[in-house]
């Protein structure tokens, strides 16, 4: 599935503003959205997922206008993983992941729904949590469960809003590895808003760098993560080294 964002603009108050965003994501690609706080990474993710309604512009999914699809059909294509999940009431992990079947489900849960949930838990390596209650789990485990719920939707595109921002380094790597494995095995695409430039560098095929509500530059990690771009966008002097697997590694030095 190919996703295309064309001339998308959104404004609400002063903090969440986007102007004329245009970008493309190919099938089987991981794309990171990077940029400073307030650049509109999360807002863009929410606009793509129709959580927020852009004032202008269009999102195309395989050439079809997303806004014209029914919300049920659309939700079968896009899975959304929020930055953090807070469940007010007690649900078991299984029930939470089962909610991801909402777009496919009538009143009754079919055996196919249960199988999809079981497989998803298995895929994420969290099947032993199935009957535990969500509020008993750690931040990293919760993040995986939120991902499992989005996966149970069987989406073509997975949208992740800063998936690693509250996690320790082990869980950061685990979560990113799951995203990578998913994209490879299920042939879907992933778009992630990322703060950590080095994780983004290591795991994405392409990066979209946002600055002042607009797209500053697009490209593979090597072409995006240059000292000049980082200085221009973040206002930080940085060294870029050759990191793991030849990916650029950003070493921030000082704010300018």
């Amino acid at each position, binding site marked *: 599935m190919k996703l295309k964002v064309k001339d998308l603009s959104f404004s609400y108050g002063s903090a969440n503003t986007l102007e004329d965003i245009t970008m493309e994501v190919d099938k089987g690609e991981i794309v990171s959205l990077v940029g400073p706080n307030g650049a509109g990474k999360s807002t863009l993710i929410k606009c793509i997922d129709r959580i927020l309604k852009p004032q202008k512009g269009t999102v195309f999914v395989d050439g079809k206008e997303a806004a014209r699809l029914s919300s049920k059909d659309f939700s079968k294509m*896009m899975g*959304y993983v929020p930055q953090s999940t807070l469940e007010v009431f007690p649900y078991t992990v299984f029930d939470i992941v089962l909610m991801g079947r909402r777009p496919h489900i009538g009143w009754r*849960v079919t055996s196919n729904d249960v199988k999809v949930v079981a497989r998803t838990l298995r895929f994420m390596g969290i099947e032993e949590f199935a009957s535990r209650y969500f509020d008993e789990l750690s931040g990293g485990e919760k993040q995986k469960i939120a991902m499992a719920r989005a996966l149970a*939707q069987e989406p073509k595109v997975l949208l992740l809003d800063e998936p690693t921002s509250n996690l320790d380094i082990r869980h950061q790597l685990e979560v990113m590895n799951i995203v990578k494995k998913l994209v490879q095995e299920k042939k879907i695409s992933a778009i992630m808003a990322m703060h950590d430039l080095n994780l983004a560098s290591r795991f994405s095929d392409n990066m979209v760098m946002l600055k002042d509500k607009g797209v500053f530059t697009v490209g593979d990690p090597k072409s995006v993560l240059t000292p000049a771009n980082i200085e221009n966008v973040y206002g930080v002097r940085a060294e870029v080294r050759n990191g793991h697997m030849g990916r650029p590694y950003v070493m921030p030095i000082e704010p300018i």
Partner: protein
Amino acid sequence: MSDDEVFDAEEVYARASGKKTLFTLVLFVGVLAVAVFATSMGAASLGMGESFGAVLAEFLPVEEVSTFAQVVVLQLRLPRILMAIITGISLGVAGAVMQGVLRNPLVSPYTLGLSSGAACGAAIAIVLGVGVLGAGRYVIVINAFFFSLLTMAIVYGISRMRGTSVETLILAGVAMGYLFSAVISLLKYVSGNEELREIVFWLMGGLYTARWENVIILIPAVLFFTLLLMRYSWDLNAMSAGEEVASSLGINVNRVRIICLSLSAVLTASVIAFTGIIGFIGLVSPHVCRLLIGSDHRYLIPCSGLIGALVLLVSDTACRTMISPTEIPVGIVTAFIGVPFFLYLLVSRKRRWWQ
């Protein structure tokens, strides 16, 4: 992965669902059993057999039954028992839905100002003798119903001005509750002895006004609204994870919210207009159910209704029999029976059920 493990998951899920279904059935049978028992309880001492006979005699040409038993059981006790059941169901269902749709464990028809609104409407009708539809026999009921719905509309309207945030809605409800309480206090202050007494009685709530003509209308209405609300179970489940996740699951959050709030407001208003304020049940029944069977609204909504019915029926039976022929207001008994039970569940469970 092997098919064995997939099969295992299905079995585990089926077992968990089976348990919840069983729990629902047990509650249902429990309500029926208490209802049957309650027909034989009361100031007039009639045995179980006599009471049954009286009920059966209405439908079947069976053996002789005294007209006294028939009048007591059919005209006094049965409508009251049915009223207790449907009132309990309404409050339990409305509480579960309101808490779910607003993602807040402290919400109930009481916190959202609906009860105060109804009470204010009733007090105005009592003191001024007129209501929105002029004077008449049902002036208090209609005024209470109307004011209750008006409160919901105002509270929702205020929250809409601020982009429908849940916090605004709840706070607006609490604020409206205070405003109506002030109006009630004012009305109490200026009213004469007779009216003051009537207001105080209304505020305490009770089922002593139950009559067949009301029960007959309320039963289908309550069942209809409960079933309608249950259709939103999956949406409510998804909304518990937050608006953004719900909307990414294809749910029109604002639409579901206004539909569920309106339906549960109508559900609550239609019973409390007759019974007066009965607190506690709307708040606590959903929590009791969550502690026992979890938060899946497909089971939570009916179970919360049945728990509400059970608690109110037991309380009302106790309040009309404990020091008969006098009655204790049901609100007092509900609190005496319900609060210790709820506190017991609260501290005996290891797991916190909300964060």
